[in-house]
């Protein structure tokens, strides 16, 4: 056993990595198209972005899959499991108390996934019904907030695929999650559809250990460079099939 945070020093930048020569990225699979498996690789929008950071640091990126709650609570950083977390993760105040975020890199909002022709057009159609959410996500928080008002039951799933499958099996009548992933799912499974978006104005950020300012600076710098150079747009188009509306 080694003491926490005795990784290698990246000369000059003051960045300490938990494993030498590697940029270990925590995420929670699968979160298509941000990070998911294709063949025997993990790919996705987030993966490509972090690769830019890794390239900049002259190391290779390694993806580490861990329960989502252990990312948002900061456990993965405190126990030295990874350097940063890119997990389609929305920046919010609660999480900011546990971890530090990069500048926002993606605009998202919450959306409602249902079975096709279910007649469920919004939360108002869900009285007495079951709504699936993913553990420790903004969607869960949002669904919980509105549960009393609209009289539905919130059902929590460990990961996105389980939640999405539950919509198809009918275990839940609808599910709330980020729009990006739900549209992607509905495209792949035409028996489901996204019937509503909730304008929550979420912004994704890359997470890291609280107080790791050196790394934050580097990530912000890389993100800014990518946006300026058009590299960001290329990556966006690769995964979403269109150019971003705003940056």
């Amino acid at each position, binding site marked *: 056993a080694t003491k926490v945070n005795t990784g290698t020093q990246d000369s000059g930048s003051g960045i300490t990595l938990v494993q030498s020569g590697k940029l270990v990225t925590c995420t929670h699979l699968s979160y298509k198209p941000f990070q998911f498996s294709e063949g025997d690789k993990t790919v996705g929008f987030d993966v490509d972005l972090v690769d830019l950071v890794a390239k900049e640091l002259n190391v290779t990126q390694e993806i580490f899959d861990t329960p989502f709650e252990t990312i948002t609570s900061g456990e993965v950083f405190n126990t030295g499991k990874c350097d940063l977390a890119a997990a389609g993760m929305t920046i919010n105040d609660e999480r900011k108390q546990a971890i530090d975020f990069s500048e926002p890199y993606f605009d998202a909002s919450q959306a409602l996934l249902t079975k096709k022709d279910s007649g469920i057009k919004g939360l108002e159609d869900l009285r007495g019904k079951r709504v699936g959410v993913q*553990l420790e996500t903004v969607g869960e928080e949002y669904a919980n907030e509105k549960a009393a008002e609209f009289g539905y039951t919130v059902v*929590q*799933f460990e990961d996105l695929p389980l939640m999405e499958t539950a919509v198809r099996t009918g*275990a839940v009548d609808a599910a709330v999650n980020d729009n990006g992933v739900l549209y992607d799912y509905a495209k792949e499974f035409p028996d489901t559809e996204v019937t509503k978006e909730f304008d929550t104005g979420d912004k994704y950020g890359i997470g890291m250990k609280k107080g790791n300012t050196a790394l934050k600076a580097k990530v912000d710098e890389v993100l800014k460079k990518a946006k300026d150079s058009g590299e960001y747009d290329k990556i966006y188009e690769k995964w979403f099939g269109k150019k971003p509306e705003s940056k």
Partner: protein
Amino acid sequence: MALSKRQRAKVFRGAQYALLAVIALVLALAADWGEIQRAFFNLDIAASMFPNVITVALKNTLVYTALGFAFGLALGLVLALMKLSSVAPYRWIATIYIEFFRGVPALLVFIALSFGVPLAFQLQFDIYSTVMLALGIVGAAYMAETIRAGIQAVPKGQIEAARSLGMSQGRTLATVVIPQAFRIILPPLTNELILLTKDSSLIYIIGLAREQYELTKFGRETLSRSPSLTPILVVGLCYLLITLPLGYLSRYLERRTGGKKISTPESTGLGVSA
């Protein structure tokens, strides 16, 4: 010779106590006690878990386990009788079932059952049915072999006595074999109830609403809000509240029935018999 054996034994025993003391001391000095208390015995967090950890989580764990056990016992009895049947296809079906479900992790079964089967068969169960099926299917595989072994452990003489009094095969089964087998299998069955209680920690995978949380899910949920091991410790103690008394019961029953040992897969490995 400096020390006699007896003296050496005394010294050895003293050394053991000393070792214990040294280890305790090292642990005491090495560990960060403030951190440990925060991590393990945070009373605020513990207090915040009550009463829900009991009224919701513990209750649900009990309900789920009971449902799974009841269904598993019924299915297990059917499987046991199938395995003892003179009709070969019944034996094959029972054997394949038991081998398969004993050989794969419960988590895999739960995933398959709650997500695969509804898709494949266009069926939809409510939460209680799903839990009952999931835990029951896993439990039945344990229990089938126990029940079969229990039935076979009923002395042959008891059956011969019943038959020679004119009882039919079915009547003998109902009047003599099952009642006696039941007393034999009560201890291992209690034990399988413990295993099932622990397996109920996996049903979070099927997706649970807040008021359906069982202990482990409840603990994880609290853990993600307050990063301390206290929630884990609290729900761990709740499990012991169930499993320790059951363990005592099992051992008491076994002593009472004279500790007649039957060969069950729990004690002898996966039951593979044709």
